[in-house]
């Protein structure tokens, strides 16, 4: 326990007593037989396989479809804690939308000198094609997955804003389904706020952003997937299914009379709102990457002319860009006139010579990330790296400093997982899911808790061996 004590454990205090949000769960847990719970873990895995909640791992042919390991101990958040997170996230997401509108229109924030011009101008995530475009309903980021980490009782940090096409919401929903099936009695003991209305809310919130060209009684919503081999295909199919929307691929689509239409058994039918799960770059071979086979040639032109709503809007990547991240507190203040409720992790921008020097001098203590990276790829965790890895990374850093940012290694909180020897603390993060419609920001009470299954590991990404937990937000 000594080694763990520098980390905040969300379930137990240093005296080994259950903290308040977990007290009822712990009462139940103490009466349970560990062997029984371990058997339940096995059941959960069979359940996931059967319903096919799998993901494909790039570069691993052997394990074509893998399961993300699921831990049966829930992560519990009190009503009070949640209220604060909710306010903080909503504030941040509003600021992001205001920022995006500004950056693609008058660029007041650049004129005010709060964000350096070159950070935008030279950024690949900034899409000149979006300048002057007004997305239907004024919404840029219909769906956001804000990544949070906790270091103490009241210390939450935003790690990433994920304003492009965040994934993982299907796990939030299916993890809950699994827990409901396995431990129904717990849900009668604790007041856990439901998450199941997410798909309906998503559909409603997308429908509320119908484009000017929409002229029916119900907007036609479709989900655009790169296809069956994409790592998140399950989620794309799941969301389409739950929303009652069509799941389309590029070869189902064509442009007719200024509308993006899908090939149905009865001919081509216009789509009003497209929840696209492909990156900006692949969206439109005529306007972006000419080699893309995943997109629809000319869809940007239809979009600009008001023929379709794209969710999220193209070009939102500029807001969750890691190079911009360190400016988020200023961005929040600039657009809301308030101090940011949620903290930012202190960040060194390696593009600045002084910061680069500091980072190189302290490489072994820091986490260094690629500005455009995701999924835990191309990242250095200093304290866990070998001398050789450090040396290799130093070279990369010196070669392209602007490609990196560095942050202190945070003392991520832990939540116990069920292991062969009983409960053992493991590091976690949290991704709540946010829906934005013209006049509303809605946050589902819950989210995806990712957990590093290896003892001491701080990397929670599923592509790097992380697992998930059900996240319970308690009612009052």
């Amino acid at each position, binding site marked *: 326990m000594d080694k763990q004590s520098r980390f905040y454990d969300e379930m137990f205090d240093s005296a080994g007593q259950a903290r308040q949000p977990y007290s009822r769960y712990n009462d139940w847990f103490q009466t349970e037989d560990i062997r029984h719970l371990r058997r339940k873990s096995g059941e959960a895995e069979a359940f996931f*396989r*059967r*319903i*096919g909640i799998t993901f494909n791992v790039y570069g691993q042919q052997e394990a074509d479809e893998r399961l993300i390991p699921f831990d049966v101990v829930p992560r519990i958040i009190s009503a009070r804690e949640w209220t604060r997170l909710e306010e903080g996230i909503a504030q941040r997401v509003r600021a992001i939308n205001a920022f995006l509108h500004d950056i693609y229109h008058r660029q007041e924030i650049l004129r005010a000198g709060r964000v350096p011009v070159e950070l935008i101008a030279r950024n690949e995530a900034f899409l000149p094609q979006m300048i002057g475009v007004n997305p239907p309903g004024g919404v840029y980021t219909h769906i956001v997955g804000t990544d949070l980490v906790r270091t103490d009782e009241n210390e939450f940090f935003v790690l990433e804003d994920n304003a492009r096409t965040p994934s993982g919401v299907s796990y939030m929903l299916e993890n809950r389904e699994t827990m409901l099936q396995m431990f129904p009695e717990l849900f009668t003991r604790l007041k856990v706020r439901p998450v199941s209305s997410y798909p309906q809310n998503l559909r409603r919130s997308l429908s509320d952003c119908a484009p000017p060209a929409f002229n029916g009684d119900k907007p036609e919503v479709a989900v655009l997937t790169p296809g*069956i081999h994409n790592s998140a*295909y399950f989620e794309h*199919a*799941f969301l*389409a*299914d739950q929303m009652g*929307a*069509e*799941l*389309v*691929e590029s*070869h*189902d689509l064509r442009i007719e009379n200024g509308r993006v239409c*899908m*090939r*149905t*058994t*009865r*001919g081509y039918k216009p789509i009003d709102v497209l929840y696209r799960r492909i990156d900006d770059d692949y969206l439109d071979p005529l306007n972006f990457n000419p080699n893309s086979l995943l997109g629809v040639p000319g869809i940007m032109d239809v979009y600009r002319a008001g023929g379709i709503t794209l969710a999220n809007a193209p070009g939102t990547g500029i807001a969750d860009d890691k190079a911009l991240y360190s400016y988020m507190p200023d961005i929040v203040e600039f657009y809301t006139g308030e101090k940011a409720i949620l903290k930012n992790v202190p960040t060194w921008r390696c593009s600045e010579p002084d910061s680069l020097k500091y980072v190189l001098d302290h490489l072994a203590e820091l986490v260094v990330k690629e500005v455009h990276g995701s999924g835990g790829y191309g990242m250095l965790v200093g304290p866990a790296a070998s001398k050789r890895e450090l040396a290799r990374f130093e070279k990369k850093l010196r070669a392209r400093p602007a490609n990196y940012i560095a942050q202190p290694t945070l003392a991520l909180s832990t939540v116990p997982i069920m292991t062969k020897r009983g409960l053992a603390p493991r590091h976690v993060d949290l991704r709540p899911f946010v829906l934005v419609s013209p006049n509303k920001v809605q946050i589902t009470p819950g989210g995806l808790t990712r957990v590093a299954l290896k003892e001491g590991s701080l990397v929670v990404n599923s592509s790097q061996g992380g697992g998930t937990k059900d996240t319970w937000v308690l009612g009052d």
Partner: protein
Amino acid sequence: MLGKTAGGLFWMFRYLERAENIARLVEAGWRIALTRSGDAENEWKSVVTTAGMRAGYLAKHDDYEAVRVINYLLRDPDNGSSVMSAVNAARSNARLVRTALSSEVWEAVNECWMAIKAVLARPVTERNLPEVLSVIRTRSAVVRGALHGTMLRNEIYNFCRMGTFLERSDNTARILDVKYYVLLPSASYVGSSMDNAQWENILRSVSAERSFSWLHGGETTPQGIAQFLILDRRVPRSMAFCCWKTREQLAHLEGEYGTRQPSQDFADTMCQRFDQPITTIFDQGLHEFLKASIRDIAALAQQIEQDFRFYG
């Protein structure tokens, strides 16, 4: 519904039907091999021919030894129509059209795939063949059951069913065509014990031995069998039944979409073929009849594909 989805449903059920049919052929072949060891090699040869896998098989093997044939039919990855390949393809199509399936159908097909993958992970031996065949049979029955019990009776259902019926009638036609010579009233064979075994085997290949004796008493005649498997609309694996059912699905689609498609006219014409007496078919040539039917089934499938925009 997306054209792609309609195509996915259609093919998912074609592949499932194919997997089941191949398992049935293996079962019938196995039975002959057990009871009449002298005919075994020939019997396996005709099983491979019926399954339409002869060229592929001969590229890999020189003889029709039971275990080799069984493994080729059930699990050889080089064989695109092996039970394993068919089930893989069915499940892959199911993933593609997941949004159109009830969760029970999806889970049934996913579990079917997992179970069959598990029993076919290692080479099949004579010893575990019955167990393997029974897993294939029960698992596909669960998918069918989930389809009937939980799916909306709308366009989705129509495309699923058409896939099943077209694949099935093709299969029945092929079984008859490979064996048509034993059904011909050729003097030298009539009444021989070899004939009886062959007739029985035809019925077994379509799991219809019991229903045949229910309808025909103990009297097994080649004309009786042909009439039963080609024209009898009470028999769920007869060509007439499959044709009428396909036509029914197309009529439902006409009702739902309000448009009559060329495939419907095609199906109507095809169904008329099953209105003539079996003697006429024999007079005009059983083989020719079956060949024409197989060709038309393929043409109808293509017309459906086009009418409902499976591929664009």
